[in-house]
Structure formats: structure tokens, C-alpha cells
């Protein structure tokens, strides 16, 4: 394992320190418990967006803290979900009184820790809601699994919901928008190489020089299927069709009932993408694949999407939700409406994503 690190136990904290000194105008970092938060938090009158998860996906989440996106991000150890005290302390720090929205990727560990934090925040009198991101089409059913994992749509949901919070949306409206974004977003990922968790010291899986993994998550878990290497056009087609041909998806999620202080189950079903839809296309690097290769992927993906009668109205191309140094890419297609586009286009000023200001 060759990485730009010191002692393994210090990796996450030192990276956080580096980000803090590099961007004091945008973010502050609190240690023990660890969370990154907006330099100007709490932002009076505005709903505070809080996300988090295991480290190793940078710039997500800490790099998305700033004006127009997240108010706080809680990083766990590499690929390990953070603990409730982190989200609880973060919520107390960024809550302006308008309440806190937790944006949670669907992994059992993340879900359970955020749920616990939501209860603690609620007991403290903080208005809180929690929305799940579960957009990985590589996971087929939700009945016999923990459900679709939260991947690329997370970045888009953080940007769009963050824009709405900045614009003064109240907690319920932020939650409704975030839920809609998740329902409209679908992703698929591939890996050309594995990645090495510092604590493990060796790649999490082995992949032949002539193979790639299709349908990976973002924690170096092996994918749904392994194939002999193909051209970027063939891979782009496999990925794009995995999303376009993906059927309706139904799952039961838990959201927080503030009135009764309890979790309520909601059944949600989202519909397939179809001809005529406008989409935001997000072509993401898993960390080790350069942007030049992403453009080759984008090229073919765009041809297929337009060929199906959908139109790409916005896009994002680059390394935004990564798996350490893994070579590979993911595609996320988000069905966009005026509300979504309005807040996508809104200004954002974070270490990892910036425009409009």
C-alpha cells in the first residue's frame, strides 16, 4: 500500500485538519466528535442540512459543506459509518432554530446511527427530519435485502436540497424536495481496479488485468457481476441501459414523525425514466480515473440517452463521490423538473463544488 499518509490511525483526522486550514473561509472542523461545519453556522432562519458517512468518498461529504449545500458533514472511519454523537453534536451546532435535515445514504450502519442521532436531537427540542438516499440500481429488490444503496444521487440531493434550504425552504419542504430528488435519481457504478483501505493495507478485492466489476457500491465491495474488459462505448452502453431499462422500484423507508416523536414507515415507489424526460447527467470518477476518460464515457452515454428520446439539460463530470483511489466510474441520471433545476443552478460555494458565486 502506497499512500500519502502518516500513521493509519491519524489518516482521517489529518485529512480533516488539512481541509480546515485550506478552506477556513468555507468550513470549520470540530474534533471528538468529528464533524465539518459551515464557517458561518448557524445560518439564522435557514434549515440546516447535515449528512455524513464513512470517510474515503472525498470530496463527499466534507467537501460539500458551505454556502448552498451542506451545513455539516460527519465523517466516520474509512468506509465505516459515523456514530450518533457526531450527528447529534453537529445538529446542535448548525441548527438555527429552523431545524435540521439529515441526508442519509442507505447502508444499515449509516441508517441506524443517524436514526439514533435524530432521536437524540428530537429529545433536545431540535426539529429534525431524515431522508434516505437509495439509488443504486445494481441492487435489484428491497424485500430480501437492506435495499438499494445510496450512491451518486447523494451528491445531487445535497446540492439541490442545499440550494432550497439557502432559499428559505422550511424543514418539511426541504425534506419533500430531497425525497423527490432521491425518487428521481438512479445510478450504476463500475470498477477497473479495487481500492485499499489504510487499516486493511491490501486491496479489498482482486480484479484481473483484463476484467472489470459491474454494479459496485462505493466501499470497494465487489460488484454484481464481473466481465472481461470492454471498450468504453460498450461499458457506457451497459451502464446507461442499466439505468434506462431499470423498472419501477418500491421500498419502505422510515421518516421521523415530529408530532409524536416516533418513526413512521412510508412505502415509496419511483418510476422508470422515459422518453421525453429531462435529466441531469452525472458522470463520476471513483477516484483514480482521470476526467479525460470520463469524457469518453460521457460521449457515448449522451448518444444513448438522446437516442432514447430523453434530453440532458445539466451535467456534472468529475470525481465527486469516490472510493479512495479506485479506478472506475459511475453514472447517475436524475429526472429534473423546474424546481430541481432552479436549485441545481443556485449558487454553491464549497471546497468540492462551486459555481454562481
Amino acid at each position: 500500500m502506497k499512500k500519502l499518509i502518516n500513521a493509519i490511525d491519524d489518516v482521517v483526522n489529518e485529512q480533516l485538519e488539512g481541509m480546515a486550514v485550506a478552506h477556513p473561509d468555507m468550513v470549520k472542523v470540530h474534533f471528538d466528535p468529528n464533524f465539518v461545519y459551515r464557517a458561518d453556522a448557524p445560518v439564522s432562519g435557514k434549515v440546516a442540512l447535515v449528512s455524513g458517512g464513512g470517510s474515503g468518498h472525498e470530496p463527499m461529504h466534507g467537501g460539500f459543506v458551505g454556502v448552498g449545500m451542506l451545513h455539516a458533514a460527519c465523517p466516520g472511519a474509512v468506509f465505516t459509518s459515523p456514530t450518533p454523537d457526531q450527528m447529534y453534536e453537529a445538529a446542535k451546532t448548525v441548527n438555527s432554530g429552523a431545524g435540521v435535515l439529515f441526508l442519509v445514504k442507505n447502508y444499515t450502519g449509516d441508517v441506524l446511527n443517524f436514526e439514533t442521532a435524530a432521536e437524540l436531537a428530537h429529545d433536545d427540542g431540535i426539529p429534525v427530519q431524515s431522508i434516505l438516499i437509495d439509488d443504486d440500481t445494481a441492487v435489484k429488490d428491497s424485500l430480501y435485502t437492506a435495499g438499494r444503496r445510496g450512491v451518486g444521487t447523494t451528491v445531487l440531493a445535497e446540492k439541490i436540497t442545499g440550494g432550497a434550504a439557502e432559499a428559505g425552504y422550511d424543514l418539511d419542504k426541504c425534506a419533500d424536495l430531497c425525497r423527490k430528488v432521491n425518487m428521481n435519481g438512479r445510478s450504476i457504478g463500475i470498477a477497473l481496479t479495487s481500492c485499499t483501505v489504510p487499516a486493511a493495507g491490501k486491496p479489498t478485492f482482486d480484479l484481473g488485468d483484463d476484467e472489470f466489476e459491474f454494479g459496485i457500491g462505493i466501499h470497494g465491495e465487489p460488484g454484481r457481476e464481473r466481465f472481461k474488459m470492454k471498450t468504453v462505448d460498450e461499458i457506457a452502453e451497459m451502464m446507461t441501459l442499466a439505468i434506462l431499462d431499470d423498472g419501477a422500484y418500491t421500498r419502505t423507508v422510515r421518516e421521523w414523525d415530529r408530532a409524536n416523536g416516533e418513526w413512521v414507515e412510508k412505502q415509496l415507489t419511483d418510476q422508470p425514466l422515459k422518453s421525453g424526460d429531462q435529466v441531469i447527467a452525472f458522470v463520476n470518477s471513483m477516484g483514480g480515473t482521470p476526467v479525460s476518460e470520463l469524457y469518453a464515457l460521457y460521449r457515448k452515454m449522451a448518444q444513448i440517452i438522446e437516442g432514447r428520446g430523453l434530453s440532458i439539460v445539466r451535467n456534472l463530470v468529475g470525481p465527486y463521490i469516490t472510493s479512495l483511489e479506485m479506478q472506475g466510474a459511475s453514472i447517475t441520471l436524475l429526472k429534473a423538473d423546474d424546481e430541481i433545476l432552479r436549485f441545481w443552478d443556485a449558487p454553491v460555494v464549497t471546497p468540492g463544488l462551486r459555481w454562481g458565486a
Partner: protein
Amino acid sequence: MITKAQILQWLEKVAAVLSENRQYLTDLDSPIGDGDHGINMDRGFKKVMEKLPSVADTDIGNILKTTGMTLMSSVGGASGPLYGTFFMRSGMALAAKEELDNHDLVELLQSAVEGIVQRGRPQLEDKTMYDALFPAVEALKASVENGDDTVEAMQKTVDAAEAGMKATIPLQARKGRASYLGERSIGHQDPGATSSYLILNALLDTVKGE
């Protein structure tokens, strides 16, 4: 009767047993998870050992609650909030207790497992720690109603937990990371069920005075 001293001994035994089995639990978590369960649990109970002295002379309820809160903020992953809830709920149920009779013992385990159900919503045969814990509670209740003494009761509890743990091997996981493997999860013993068995077994050793 279980004394406060024994509760403290139990927690120390758990810490010892989990660090002994750190690699074993991690190996169980590798084929069907992300290979960190032993690391997570060991990290958590080491922190508990640091915390305990400061609450050692408060009541049993508070000792267990503190244990739960410590696990909650140090274990992470799925098992962190689950075992955190396990001990917090049992602690709340036994507030102010200085010693536990067999009905208190039922209270302890039952509320602990209820907490896990509320938090993780496991169902039987999902291939989780619940598959070891549910039969354990049932066995404890029956044995206590039956008038058995603490050692007998805990022996039956642990036997049930062990059977439940072994029964996870042929199951296909429907919860947690393992569920993404579908049929590939069959044939492996669930790491969480295993740690649950170890925790209960440590209590048996304690009441047996071993």
C-alpha cells in the same frame, strides 16, 4: 441474585472475550460483510473499560446505560447502535437497582432485545444477532417461570443463543451488508449472532463464578 460486582465482572469478561475473539469475529464478517465486526466490538468495549471506573459505584441501571452510550459513540457500523441500544435499554429498565433477582434478569435481556428490534427491525431468520437473541430471551423467560436458579436459567439461555447462532449458517441474509450477497451469504455464520452468544456466555461464566 446477581450483584453489582458481578455485573461489572460480566462487562470485564465481555471486553476480554471480545478482544480474544477480535480476529475470529472479523473473519466471520469478511466473506459476508466488510470484515470489521471484531475490530468494531473490540474498540467499543475497550472504551467501555475506560469509562466504567467513573460509574462503578453508581447503580446497575446507570452502569449498563453508560456502557450502552459508550458503545453507541465508539463502535460505529450497524452493530454500534444495536449493542448501544441493547445496554441502554436494559439500563433504563433497571434504573436504581443495586442487585438483580431472576425477574430483573428477564427484564434486562427482554428490554435489551426489544431495543434491538426497534432499532434494527430484524425478523427471525434474517441472519442477524436477533436469531441468537430471540431464542435466548424465550429460554430465559421459560426457565425463570419454571423456578430455575440463576445459573440454570443462564445455562438454558446460552444454550438457546448458541443454537440460534449456529442456525444462522444455512440462512440467506435479508438484513445488513450480507444481504447484498444474496445466495452467496448462505453457509456462513453471522458475526453479530456470534458476538451476541459470546456476550451472554460471559454472563453465564460470571454467575457460575468462573
